């Protein structure tokens, strides 16, 4: 079946980001339909659609929204995670640059569904003059057209939308760190529970749904097709299409819309034109830098959340990096670990010390000064970091550390003494 283009159909049109282009392609027709439904009906459709959060954890969006709806404390918020910082991930930026209105329409529908009247889109600071500027233009156009503001399309629903930006910190992509940052503080993840969806855990301690940009961009599609139809696309319990952000040694890197669950081999061959001239596939990062590595032999694996979880890696952020034979995986891991050591917020000892140790050990190994014990130590330190910390950054550092060694031990051994 040729992959349906649900999110990217306007992307190649000239001035694809304008309201005019979006409306010509049928944009803002889902919103009036949604506003005629009961909010709970929309959430029910989202539950049926099997939409899973595209930010990294793959949490069922409908379930998250039901948590927020059940809370009796008002106001409630929907906060958008546009902090895109996971190494290898660049699809939210493309959405904001190329079809911001699709996202804005989804956002308005989402806010209506969770009964939110004031929403924030938290963009990473670096986006201010590019992706966020496009977004702001789209928000302004939406206000002018009566899709945002007071009494939207005569429905009686009011919504204020604000785009705000951070100041450079990967950790602010973690949802509770994001909320801290949004409240004007440094981005220290909060201890959970209470979760953001619950009273006491969200923005200004109110019940809050935190959702990724791409997650929300699916809402107009779900309202248009209905949850059941949408859910038929993709894999079981993993509804819809996904925007795979592909980089590395492929012929044609970029963001590709493919059904959830497409195999990594099909993604490579059918969408990216295969590996570059002279490149042979060696390894695949399946879902952003924090995911466990896959070997070339594992390229047949399906890319949905549940399959990859069962295979002890993760679909994560949808950032897929194909690496070729020129890469020594110990060097690649050393690069990743510098990132985590730099980005750890430092609250939890296993993470702060662990990432720093891993980074130094790996730097020593790639400098040719390590021995076999150092490689074993990397593996052991990584194991000891898991499941002990306030947020998942530490696990996101441990997962690659363990798996790179388990699957590519020879690359490490080639660099160390006996």
């Amino acid at each position, binding site marked *: 079946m040729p992959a349906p283009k649900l999110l990217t159909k306007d992307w190649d049109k000239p001035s694809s980001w304008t309201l005019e282009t979006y409306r010509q392609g049928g944009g803002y027709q889902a919103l009036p339909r949604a506003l005629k439904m009961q909010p709970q009906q929309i959430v029910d459709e989202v539950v049926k659609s099997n939409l899973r959060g595209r930010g990294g954890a793959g949490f069922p969006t409908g379930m998250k929204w039901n948590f927020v709806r059940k809370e009796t404390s008002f106001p409630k918020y929907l906060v958008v995670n546009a902090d895109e910082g996971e190494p290898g991930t660049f699809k939210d930026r493309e959405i904001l640059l190329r079809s911001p209105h699709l996202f804005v329409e989804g956002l308005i529908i989402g806010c209506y569904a969770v009964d939110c009247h*004031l929403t924030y889109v938290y963009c990473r*600071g670096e986006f201010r*003059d590019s992706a966020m500027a496009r977004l702001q233009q789209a928000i302004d156009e939406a206000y002018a057209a009566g899709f945002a503001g007071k009494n939207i399309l005569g429905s009686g629903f009011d919504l204020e939308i604000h785009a705000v930006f951070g*100041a450079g910190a990967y950790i602010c992509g973690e949802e509770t760190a994001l909320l801290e940052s949004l409240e004007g503080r440094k981005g220290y993840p909060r201890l959970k529970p209470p979760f953001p969806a619950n009273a006491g855990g969200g923005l200004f301690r109110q019940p809050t749904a935190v959702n990724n940009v791409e997650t929300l961009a699916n809402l107009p599609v779900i309202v248009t097709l209905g949850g059941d139809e949408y859910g038929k696309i993709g894999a079981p319990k993993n509804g819809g299409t996904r925007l795979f952000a592909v980089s590395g040694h492929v012929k044609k890197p970029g963001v590709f819309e493919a059904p959830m669950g497409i195999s990594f081999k099909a993604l490579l061959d059918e969408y990216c034109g295969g590996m570059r001239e002279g490149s042979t596939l060696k390894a695949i*990062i399946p879902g952003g830098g924090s995911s466990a590595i896959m070997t070339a032999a594992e390229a047949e694996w399906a890319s949905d959340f549940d399959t990859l979880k069962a295979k002890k890696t993760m679909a994560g952020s949808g950032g897929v990096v194909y690496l070729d034979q020129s890469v020594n995986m110990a060097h690649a891991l050393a690069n990743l670990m510098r990132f985590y050591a*730099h980005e750890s917020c430092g609250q939890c000892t296993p993470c702060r*010390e662990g990432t720093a140790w891993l980074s130094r050990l790996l730097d020593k190994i790639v400098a040719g000064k390590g021995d076999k014990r150092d490689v074993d130590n990397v593996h052991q330190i990584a194991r000891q970091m898991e499941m002990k910390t306030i947020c998942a950054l530490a696990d996101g550092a441990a997962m690659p550390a363990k798996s790179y060694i388990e699957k590519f031990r020879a690359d490490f051994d080639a660099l160390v003494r006996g």
Partner: protein
Amino acid sequence: MIPLGTQSGPVESPFTPEQQQRFDAGLARAVAKYPPDRRKAALLAALHLAQDELGWLSEPTMAYVGFRLDVPPVRVREVVTFYTMYRMRPVGRHQIGVCNSISCWAMGSEKILKHCSELLGIHPGETTRDGQFSLEEVSCLAACGNAPAALVNNFRYVENVTPESMGALIGELREKPGTEMAKGPLPRMPDPHLHEQSQGAPQATGSLDGPAVSTHPEAGSTEPR
């Protein structure tokens, strides 16, 4: 003396009248995004506004921003030191950040960094003696499909960079006024410390003839032996 606790009185503004006007207007817009009892939430935005004007955030600037939002200076400092886009020292008129995360690294970002180092005569983390350029190594910019990617003056993306295109960019920045980090006239003097490491992105060491980058994270305190 900068008080560390709550403000006791008004703090003097670091801005010229023209800068003040822009700052005040920007602050009003930022504060208006939040509920009236949540003005402090605009702190990150206010710091960006101040840095847009001055190029970096000195202690008096931080104290002033805190004063405007009723945030104690120590809390302001905490925020400024946490986020990498804020500068606590004067940096170059132009700041070049080369992404060295996994996809850019796989596509040759170390070569780009090395080339920039050679062109500018500085290592990542340093500022040229004439105060024109700072070079940094930055984390994934979410532009990995067009790797290697770089970021100029915090907000301008340049993608698919090559050693040649970086050379051209540096030449262009040198000649074009109005593209620098700060909008206003810079209250910065050529400073004997300029050649030191600037605060921010990963700290780098190494010599120009060795590999361009080998980064040692500041996080953590224990040396594995």
